[in-house]
């Protein structure tokens, strides 16, 4: 068990291992000694609990390190601002929905024009027009997204501009 425990501890980030690995091993060893004489179900529950705890803990530590968000905070979870959708998402989703509906209508138009009786003809003749529409819709959606970001002051140019201002201010300091 301890060999497997030590192996699973390798899943943790290096800094965490340096900090707690030996201590966790010692505690697990002590807890394992308490299992002597207990029924099989109690021992199995202990092993399952320890393995699950290590896997969940390692995943949590890595996610916390990578994303810099604590998924298991000291206080119970509430709806934190970083988990909420920005309001602009609603507008962007409506634009995308409109684009999809428009594409469906256009597809119906193409079907009526080129296959009025329901007979499907070769698609190659309609492909350029279809590709043009798709390109136009993608550009429209992209432009709408950029316009929303620009209105919110979060476009790439504006962020770079802010960054440059901060860097200049830092250098001046």
């Amino acid at each position: 068990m301890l060999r497997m425990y030590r192996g699973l501890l390798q899943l943790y980030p290096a800094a965490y291992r340096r900090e707690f690995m030996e201590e966790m091993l010692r505690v697990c060893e002590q807890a394992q000694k308490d299992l002597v004489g207990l029924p099989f179900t109690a021992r199995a529950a202990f092993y399952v609990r320890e393995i699950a705890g290590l896997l969940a803990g390692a995943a949590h530590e890595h996610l916390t390190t990578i994303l810099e968000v604590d998924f298991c905070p000291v206080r119970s979870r509430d709806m934190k601002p970083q988990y909420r959708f920005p309001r602009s998402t609603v507008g962007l989703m409506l634009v995308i929905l409109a684009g999809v509906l428009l594409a469906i209508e256009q597809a119906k138009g193409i079907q009526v024009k080129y296959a009025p009786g329901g007979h499907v003809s070769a698609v190659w003749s309609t492909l350029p027009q279809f590709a043009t529409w798709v390109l136009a819709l993608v550009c429209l959606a992209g432009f709408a997204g950029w316009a929303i970001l620009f209105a919110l002051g979060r476009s790439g140019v504006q962020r770079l501009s802010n960054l440059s201002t901060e860097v200049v201010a830092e250098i001046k300091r």
Partner: protein
Amino acid sequence: MKALPLSEPVLLVLLSLSDRPRHGYSILKDVEQISRGRVVLSTGTLYGALHRLLAQAWIERYGQGDGSRDSRAYRLTSRGRQNLQWEIARMKDLARLASLRLAHKEA
């Protein structure tokens, strides 16, 4: 101070450290005892909680006589104790409100 409730493992670990400093194994056993066997922490869960509490300075390491890592003990800081007291006050208030509401309903 945002009065969000503490998660149960964290509350039990803080309660365990409220009377005296303890090392990891002692915390494990004490949590099991004070929860009357209802909560049995794994070492992964325990050290995850200890890691976060250390990061927030709610607990600190205590008395490493020989400097070895496996003999580390932990104790509450004044900040941790204050947060624990707030949490207990919050729970008391909630229990009082619940009792009042139930009494009102029964009357």
